[in-house]
């Protein structure tokens, strides 16, 4: 076999092996998106309900509570950025990190100091490589977060929020950057302010807002609501990010598989041409050799 042909064959084999891997990853992600989507849907009622309750308190109550009354002069903000643990998902993690950078520079221009809290190995590596300060990080569950994971993350965010800003680690505001799962094909990174809860600009059309009577006191209720509210929203953000991660990975792996197909096609063409060239060359060598023999023997007689 000619050297050229052997090289083409070798490359085809390696591309085919890669294609098998990318194809498998594509299929795995497709099946996981559905499950992740169902989990997002299952947690939505709780998140919507608790957010409604908290927003209506923020809108209609005069109670002073750090959760609903914004500090007049905020100094520090916590930003939680949710990314993936693994790569192979196209621009998914980078898009979230970039969205986080935009938010952080915005906050800094308002004179705030920003503490970065990170979820996902990709964000942690990004920050470590650039020597940026990390206030807290969690890894290992980005593609399948549980409520306990969300609780763990929320706990340190809440501690930071309730700590006085004067002392170390305290923050006045809490933002979360995650990837919103809009549909199978659209996922957009967004940044959302979680705390303090702000009253909505226009009144809700469904008329769910109301004056509330508090069983025990407003303060007790708010104290109990705060951690649950943060947990629910962080959990929902994590689940949406997980669904987006799978969707992004599926798309990236699909285009990788398609590219592998293209490559195999063009390599097959090249290999065929090389084989043809080899045959042609061998034929002409045989014919040439036979002719030389024939003319040599004709000359001797």
């Amino acid at each position, binding site marked *: 076999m000619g050297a050229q042909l052997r090289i083409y064959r070798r490359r085809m084999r390696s591309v085919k092996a890669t294609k098998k891997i990318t194809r498998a990853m594509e299929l795995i992600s497709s099946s996981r998106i559905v499950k992740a989507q169902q989990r997002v849907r299952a947690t939505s009622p709780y998140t919507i309900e608790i957010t409604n309750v908290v927003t209506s308190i923020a809108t209609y109550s005069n109670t002073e509570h750090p959760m609903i009354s914004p500090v007049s002069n905020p100094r520090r903000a916590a930003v939680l950025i949710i990314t993936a643990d693994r790569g192979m998902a196209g621009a998914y993690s980078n898009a979230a990190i970039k969205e986080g950078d935009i938010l952080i520079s915005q906050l800094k221009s308002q004179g705030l100091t920003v503490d970065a809290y990170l979820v996902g190995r990709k964000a942690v590596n990004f920050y470590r490589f650039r020597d940026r300060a990390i206030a807290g990080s969690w890894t290992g569950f980005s593609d399948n977060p549980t409520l306990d994971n969300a609780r763990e993350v929320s706990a340190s965010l809440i501690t930071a929020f309730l700590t006085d800003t004067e002392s170390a680690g305290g923050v006045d505001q809490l933002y979360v950057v995650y990837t919103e799962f809009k549909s199978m094909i659209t996922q957009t990174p967004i940044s959302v302010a979680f705390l303090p809860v702000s009253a909505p600009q226009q009144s809700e059309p469904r008329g*769910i807002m109301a004056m509330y009577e508090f069983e025990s006191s407003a303060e007790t*209720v708010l104290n109990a609501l705060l951690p649950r509210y943060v947990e629910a929203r962080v959990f929902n953000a994590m689940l949406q990010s997980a669904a987006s991660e799978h969707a992004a990975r599926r798309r990236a792996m699909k285009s990788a598989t398609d590219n592998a197909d293209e490559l195999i096609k063009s390599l097959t063409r090249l290999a065929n041409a090389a084989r043809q060239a080899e045959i042609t060359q061998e034929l002409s060598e045989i014919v040439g050799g036979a002719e030389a023999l024939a003319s040599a023997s004709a000359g001797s007689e």
Partner: protein
Amino acid sequence: MSATKLTVEVVSPEKLIWSGEATMVSAKTLDGNIGILVDHISLLGVLEPGVVSIKAEDGSVADFNMADGFISVNKNRVSILGEQVK
């Protein structure tokens, strides 16, 4: 507006546990036991660990053993937010 029944939802952080219509909901909050009937004032309370019972129109009662949570009542919509005892 006088509705004749309550729309009740029991939701945990992970899923919707129960939803439907009822005539009465009783629960135990920090201040004690409360019963909620139609046209109750808007209320928000912290639940004590205990049983939340929902009495449906046909008289059947659904009990939920809650570990913690909140009860929110607003315009005949009752939401029980919390986790069930496992």
